[in-house]
């Protein structure tokens, strides 16, 4: 069985995987990082979005072996356990940007990628357009859009980088 090594949320990890193992399976099943979700498993819904070398990708459409040597950030890597939330997480809490919460980790990882690409001052149209790859079946997106705009601003104030610290 091939072996794969990568850095996940700042920690070096190694595992034996089948070639067909998806990154999301490796994260959830080998590393027990279950914050990254599998929604549709067909690249549509974005519940599985993580950052690969700082860039958002769908981990259900990436092989674990493609990430050999890469730096992966998942939702678990954004804030310390029991520490304060990342400003984007806090904005989702504050603006009630979730109901069932299933899409939320992917939404937040996608939101950070929007900040990386488009900056901290985001208008509603930009956010809605850039959320093309993330589906939410509860909220109607309204509060998610508000949360992302507020989170992006809060990140500028607090100096939080769009890519989590390693």
């Amino acid at each position, binding site marked *: 069985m091939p072996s794969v090594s990568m850095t996940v949320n700042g920690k070096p990890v190694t595992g034996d995987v089948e*070639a067909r193992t998806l990154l999301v399976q490796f994260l959830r099943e080998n590393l027990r990082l279950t914050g990254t979700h599998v929604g549709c498993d067909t690249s549509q819904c974005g519940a599985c979005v993580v950052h690969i070398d700082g860039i958002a990708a*769908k981990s259900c459409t*990436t092989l674990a072996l493609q990430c*050999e040597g890469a730096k992966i950030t998942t939702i678990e890597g954004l804030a310390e356990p029991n520490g304060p939330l990342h400003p984007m997480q806090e904005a989702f809490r504050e603006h009630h940007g979730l109901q069932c919460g299933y899409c939320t980790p992917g939404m937040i990882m996608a939101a950070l990628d929007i900040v990386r690409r488009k900056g901290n001052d985001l208008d509603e149209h930009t956010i809605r357009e*850039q959320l093309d790859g993330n589906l939410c079946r509860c909220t109607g997106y309204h509060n998610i859009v508000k949360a992302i705009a507020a989170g992006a601003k809060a990140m500028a104030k607090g100096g939080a980088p769009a890519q989590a610290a390693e």
Partner: protein
Amino acid sequence: MYNFTFHRPTTVRQAAGLLSRNPEGKILAGGQSLLPVMKQRLASPSALVDLALVEGMTGVELKGRSVVIGAMTRHADVANSTVLQEAMPGLAAVPGAVGDPQVRNRGTIGGSIANNDPNADYPAACLGLGATIITNKRRIAADDFFTGMFSTALEDGEIITKVSFPIAKKCAYEKFKHPASGFALVGVFVSKRGPDIRVAVTGAGSNGVFRVKTFEEALKKRFAAKSIEGLTIPATGMNEDIHASAEYRAHLVGVLARRALAKANA
């Protein structure tokens, strides 16, 4: 997904060697089309040859009167290339219209072209600009490259390394997005480079991307939406599915061609 062996060569030559030793193998570029198809078991390659570690396969550069794009350049990087935005913004808009942001962060131009999905965007741009597809063996004109739905002129063991687009003074892409999948229900790329006028259509034809010679002829007098006013294309040979009838797709070809012409002249 059925299992396979996984290879990460560091040169094109090694990659070609791996393909020849694994006749049922496939190249893995960004994986945004191939992996979903493998999950559905519509493809079950015995080996995947990942090109990610092969050097010199990414980047957008100006070469004379052409823009040359490395086959492994991701859609987001092509869309954001300042070189391309200055030289030919009409082409930069094409990768910007593919999939969603996360797919654009992974998917590549070479992968899209080699796959030749009948609803993909890049084939229209290649055919609509008269691009040259450069492989490890030869140079192939776009007119000869796309040979039908999901099929190309690529031979076994042949690997796309670059795509060269001649710079057209006027060009634009217009796409009617399928609202769920983001694929082109119909997409039209138009260009004018000196006397060479091209109108290429994706999404509509049941045999993949094609040129509309009647439109091109009419545009020779004047490269403007008005020149093709009232012209239509027949519905025979158009795709038909639950999303759109053949007649509707044929109708959209005219509408989108006119919009693309307006955009190219703006």
